[in-house]
């Protein structure tokens, strides 16, 4: 079947099998390998992408066909104008990653969180990230990074709360 | 993982009627829930493809069913083996068949299910209810079928 999906601002029209998962469509049809696969049960969150600008979804739990007509943001879409997104910068600054395998999912979940809650406290961040597993960091520096990114994003020109 | 079940059914039909019914593979296959297709192999054996949905284990299981009627006509043993999707299920069931006062028949049944593979890993909390449903429904359906429509073989 034919689908049209906007990924990171580019419209793609592609033929897909009905059973193709969104994550394999992104990785194999579009070559966007930043989105990873880590389990068979939608438990780990390394596949998280953002749907329609502000919804974190596990792309292993969606068929590509379900993304037809929608807008997807992946980790590759975070850099704007050659500049790292504040979340990317903060993950780097705060040592919020080690092996880097969960990082794209962590970034995209955090991205969606900040769209809804520009200034989340630690419990809110921990709750938002509860569907993203990390085996390396123990989460503490990831939480710190999200807080730094929130502060950075809010400081110059606070974004309106989109709820 | 071994699971054990037992149950009791009272059927408003004579013992011979019930006995004849459960000796026919086609009838027993018709009583198992979620059967997609069945093939009678011989007088006591049939193969069935069953739709299974247990947590993340979803798909078709193939079962080989052997009926083992005991002489005397008061006990039927049944051995079901098969599986699919990397899992194996072995089920042995046995039922005592006795005439009940008032012309009916009682089935007192016991079953043991052994699970191996992903289906076992899902754990008792899901499997137990599923296996129980399949076995219980099969015996319930024997009753339903013999109650709802006149038996194909006339009593006496």
């Amino acid at each position, binding site marked *: 079947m034919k689908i049209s999906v906007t990924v990171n601002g580019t419209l793609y029209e592609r033929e897909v*099998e009905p059973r193709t998962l969104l994550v394999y469509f992104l*990785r194999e049809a579009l070559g966007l*390998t*930043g989105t*990873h*696969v*880590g*389990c*068979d*049960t939608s438990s*780990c969150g*390394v596949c998280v992408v953002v749907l329609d600008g502000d919804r974190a979804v596990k792309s292993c739990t969606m068929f590509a066909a379900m993304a037809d007509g929608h807008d997807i943001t*992946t*980790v*590759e879409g*975070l850099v704007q104008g050659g500049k*790292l997104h504040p979340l*990317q910068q903060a*993950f*780097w*600054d705060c*040592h919020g*990653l*080690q*092996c*880097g*395998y*969960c*990082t*794209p999912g962590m*970034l995209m979940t955090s991205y969606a969180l900040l769209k809804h809650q520009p200034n989340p406290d630690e419990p809110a*961040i921990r*709750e938002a*990230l*509860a569907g*993203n*597993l*990390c*085996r*390396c*960091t*123990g*989460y*503490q*520096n*990831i939480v710190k990074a999200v807080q730094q990114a929130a502060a950075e994003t809010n400081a110059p020109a606070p974004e309106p709360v989109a709820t | *993982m*071994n699971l054990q079940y037992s149950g009791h059914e009272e059927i408003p039909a004579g013992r011979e009627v019930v006995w004849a019914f459960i000796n026919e593979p086609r009838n027993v296959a018709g009583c198992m829930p979620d059967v997609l297709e069945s093939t009678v192999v011989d007088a006591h054996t049939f193969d069935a493809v069953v739709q299974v949905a247990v947590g993340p284990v979803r798909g078709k299981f193939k079962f080989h069913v052997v009926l083992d009627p005991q002489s005397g006509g008061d006990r039927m043993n049944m051995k079901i083996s098969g599986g*699919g*999707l*990397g*899992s*194996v299920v072995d089920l042995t069931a046995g039922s005592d068949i006795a005439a009940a006062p008032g012309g009916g028949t009682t089935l007192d049944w016991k079953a043991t299910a*052994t699970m*191996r*593979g992903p289906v*076992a*890993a*899902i*754990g008792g909390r899901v499997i137990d209810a599923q296996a129980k449903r399949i076995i219980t429904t099969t015996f319930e359906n024997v009753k339903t079928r013999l109650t709802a429509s006149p038996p194909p073989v006339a009593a006496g």
Partner: protein
Amino acid sequence: MSTTAEPTPDKYSLGQSMKRKEDPRFIRGAGNFLDDIVLPGMLWLSIVHSPYPHARLVKIDKTAALAVPGVVAVLTGEDLAAHNLAWIPTFHGYDKQMILAVGKVLFQYQEVAGVIATSREIAQDAAELVDVEYEPLDPVVNPFQSREDKIILRDDRENKTNHIYHWEVGKRDATDAAIAASDVSIKERVVFQRCHPAPLEPCGIVADMDAATGRLTLYLTSQAPHAHRTVVSLVTGIPEDKIHVISPDLGGGFGNKVPVYPGYVVAAAASVVIGVPVKWIETRTENLTTTGFARDYHMDVEIGATKDGKVTALKVTTVADHGAFDAAADPTKYPAGLFGIVTGSYDFANAFTELDAYFTNKAPGGVAYRCSFRVTEASFAIERGMEILARKLNMDPAELRLKNFVKKEQFPYPSPLGFVYDSGDYHLTLRKALDMIGYDELRKEQAEKRKRGELMGIGISTFTEAVGAGPSKHFDIMGIKMFDSAEIRVHPTGSAILRAGTKSQGQGHETTWAQIAADELGLDPQNIMVEEGDTDTAPYGLGTYASRSTPVAGGAIAMAARKIREKARKIAAHLLEASVDDIEWENHAFHAKGLPGKAITMQEIAFAAYTNPAPDSEPGLEATFYYDPPNLTFPYGAYIAVVDVDPETGFVKVRRFLAIDDCGTVINPMIVEGQIHGGLTEGFAIAFMQEIAFDESGNNLNTNFTEYLVPTSLETPHWETSSTCTPSPHHPIGAKGVGESPNVGSPAAFVNAVMDALAPLGVTHIDMPLTREKVWRACREASTA
């Protein structure tokens, strides 16, 4: 050429929290992990697994699978046997393991057949159509059943017994006598359950046989690429120069990516036979059920002491469950790894430990999961034992430890089980921990709460590790000595490339290796590119596991840099027109005696090495060093956990956790802290939620992440960390390694804390994982007793 001395800024020196050099690609999603590798014409492998833990293989019918369009081949054990690949030797060479089952299956999920097809989906669909007929056999599901030898599992072996080996060290009679003669003694069975490293990236391979060149390239999730190249060569007979192993970015390893797995061998064999690339990526279920389990030690711990709390003797008797094959990842001469570290941080006059290992119908493995070869099991045993002894003596567990620690002045300390501990100040580190956490106040709070019937516990673990295998006189794997290596090549403009025999899986080698070299050479670490994991370019090394990278390869980097510095000294003498003997290295630059203010930087030397070499030396500036460490290193720490237990629900709240680590010289404090956070989280998971459990029929009950739990951000406690520093006297930069300390030391702290909380109920020990159900049951049984 010479300028005024401009020493490398401090921020580039050892001990600085430099941001990681590898991060820019990962935060952009531009890492290159194994599944990202796609080659033209590549085929996919999917594996058929046994649902039975123990069964005779009657028949494999490939017909239906082969009929699926897109299926290229279906391989079985018989097919591999034709190429002599049905079995391969295990890690240390004492046993062999099946690649695809021949004759029998010996554990549930064992690999039975491989389907090669044009896509992942076709391979998976067709794998379900491979019809395998089994004749089930009774399974052996624990080592105690196994040792009865009623069912012999391995009929391929000469000795018809399930017993694999007996190992012992120490003085049995003296230890037994000392325990018998002691005023007070304890004996407890503590089980370190079977668990799994479960890195988020599963294992995988792309095998690419190039018929034109005759070279086999293996892109492999490998913590030890060189060792794997050698193994492949030995097993297949392919000359080692025709094998190229590339270990790309690894999404975690924790020991899981040390062994050779059947999927690797089948994919490689298929590529060799078919002549096109073949990819195999594990599913999570395959990862948890077939590869790299850890621990599974049942340990009887006995300690004797005087009535005032001086320990006199330690005896630990272990029964080990090794699964279907003896594939435990341990150095050849150490079948039970470094379990001899079981005397821990304490000065025992007498000690003895013995171990018997058995086959069972479970997956093979016994990898060192974030652990230096069984050090975790040993640390858990002694730290639980000390806690139980403290309670029996009615003595504060901190006081008992302080009374029995090896003293600072005893180092280098020869332990009764054969190690020589390099350095430490255990009293200082524990006292710092007690002070920082406010131990006395916490004990007062606990006393108050106990009066009110509330369950609060404080748990201490003061562990010592033995890491950095290791000295070649003791340590080898299949004969290959456990040295490691580094090669540094300084470019004319003063930047450099550094290659090492190790392989980072998230530890940050691209940063820390550059920092070591930068500090030794006075170069900017930002301009030292670190490359690992490519056997065509990196010098031969044994890889990254067992906390060996910094102790061994870290030493090699410092030594290679010092070789370069010696050559640079000659060039400096040439440029300064001074005698080599008068050239001094100070503030990261060369100075000539008597010429204050004049200095030559390494950058200038590098340029001269290519443009104006000294008359008596060869041009260029590079060095390779193979470092054979003189001893292991012995990092240690003092950890304290504070918990509240709700007896109504069994919920354990880890209120505080403080980790004081002493890993000697610290290369990058930020990275060390990150390693500790991660290791504590894994220790927390093992203590409270993780186990690969089996039912009585041999079913694996924890086959995916809904059953094998990884803690999320919600459960994971906040970690408090600090350090003390006693450098290793024998390591070139005094570093000891740290990555595994928190995973080794923390489980006992958690369990000790929970048992301390449950002490008023009379509960002495519960085996991990301390799930809510187990804690609730213990509380309930105690209250109804």
